[in-house]
């Protein structure tokens, strides 16, 4: 049976992740806020093969869920449906969609820690967050390929980390374990790793 991946968010990043997961042989569900009919055409055209669902249905359907919605909307996540799941937080503060950062995330908290606090029954991993969405699409390569790029993974739970690292590898990147979820702060905007599109050894150096 094909592995499943649910993606919450059908914007630039959500669509690219769906494309990569489809290419890697996953069954993919993708959700925007509200009625899936709203993104039906987008999904059919940009990520054919993926299924548009409500966020709740998508969260229930898969054991691994990637968050690719605007960070400021994280309080709208289906908390109950995400309980007991591995939740990969790929979100970043981005003013165009989020307004002022302090309005959604306390300034002394990393965004993934805030997400984990809200999703108390889920296991949150920060990954797939630092590379630009077009680099993700252009740079995905099979395991062992020359020049393969790396993606950092931050998590507190070992099996969650292993699952996220497997996903990163399947999507076409070398996973780099950077330790605890709190370390995910090093991947946020304003840090050298934000926007990084580098091979494993170089990414390690700057983190």
């Amino acid at each position, binding site marked *: 049976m094909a592995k499943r991946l649910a993606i919450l968010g059908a*914007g630039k990043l959500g669509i690219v992740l769906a494309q990569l997961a489809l290419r890697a042989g996953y069954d993919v569900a993708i959700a925007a806020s509200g009625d899936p009919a709203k993104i039906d055409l987008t999904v059919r055209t940009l990520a054919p093969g993926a299924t548009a669902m409500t966020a709740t249905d998508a969260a229930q359907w898969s054991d691994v869920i990637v968050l690719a919605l605007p960070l400021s909307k994280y309080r709208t996540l289906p908390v109950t449906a995400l309980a007991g799941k591995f939740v990969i937080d790929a979100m970043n503060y981005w*003013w*165009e*969609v989020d307004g002022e950062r302090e309005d959604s995330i306390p300034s002394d908290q990393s965004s993934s820690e805030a997400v984990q606090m809200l999703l108390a029954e889920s296991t949150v991993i920060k990954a797939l967050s630092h590379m630009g*969405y*077009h680099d993700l*699409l*252009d740079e995905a390569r099979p395991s062992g390929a020359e020049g393969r790029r790396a993606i950092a993974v931050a998590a507190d739970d070992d099996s969650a980390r292993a699952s996220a690292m497997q996903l990163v590898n399947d999507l076409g990147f070398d996973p780099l374990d950077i330790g605890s979820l709190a370390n995910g702060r090093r991947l946020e905007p304003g*840090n050298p790793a*934000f926007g990084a599109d580098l091979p494993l050894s170089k990414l390690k150096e700057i983190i």
Partner: protein
Amino acid sequence: MKTNYTFGLDNFGDIPLDESGEAVTHAQAIRQVVDEAILADKLGVDIIALGEHHREEYSISSPEMVLAAIASRTKRIKLSSGVTVLSSDDPVRVYERFATLDAVSNGRAQIILGRGSFTESFPLFGYSLQDYDVLFEEKIELMAELLKEKPVSWSGTTRTELADADVFPKTESGRIETWVGVGGSPNSVLRAARYGFPLILAIIGGAPARFAPYVDLYKQAAKEYGTTAHPVGMHSPGYIADTDEEAMELAWPTFKTAFDAIGKTRGWAPWSYEHFKREVAMGSLYVGSPKTVAERIAHAMRAVGAERFDLVYGFGPVKASDRMKMVELYGKKVIPMVRELLEKS
């Protein structure tokens, strides 16, 4: 049927350097753009598009003022914004200003509507970034009505309501050519299709071919909404010099300065030379000799399915004389070569 390809030059009013390497004044930067547009007009460039910014590194905050000056000294070049930040503007005034530009230019005005990619205009004009989405959604709806040039009744949350309001001057053609500029959000593509606006994609990084599905999305959406799918345009930065080597050498420091300044506002790390080289080789920077740039543009237009290409020139601190030369190479050499390449295929 022969495709009608069009080619534009886009500029944000970046501050050029004089011969001694000093930055010129904002006022001189604006006059430079006027001179460049006059040359572009003589060389047959189809469009000059000027962006609206409210930041120190860009001199143009009122594109239509500069376009009006260009109008009085040119004959055929189309005069466009690129983009008009509609979210922090008033659609009624946007209509009035561009209808006026259309009058003084004998029907050459063009608008590219956008959400803007900087924050400054929001606090400056009293808008909240929290309202980023609703501001654009409501204002594009009103703009679409105003462009019909009939009395408008409209109400919303972001501006005073209009009851059978008629707005002047009317244009002679009955319609100001109006595009929507999109950075790659699927929703923005759907929105352009919903209102039947032509779409121009801002492609400033990565392989241009990845935008081809967006063109499909635009066409599919137009079909479903029962609107017209117009030809699609693309806009990307570049640097043209006599040789590839010269272009690379001159372009690198200017692009690094310009993109690092933007990166600071977004929180991404400074550009590396490797990143720059990769963008030039297969991404979205059109840097090189006229032949190299023409081949890359033709390839990208085919890959995306674009019928309009706008080159963002003079991005960052470029010498005024090099900018003028770039306009000349683009008009005299690059455009004819791209046309030839596209017509061959």
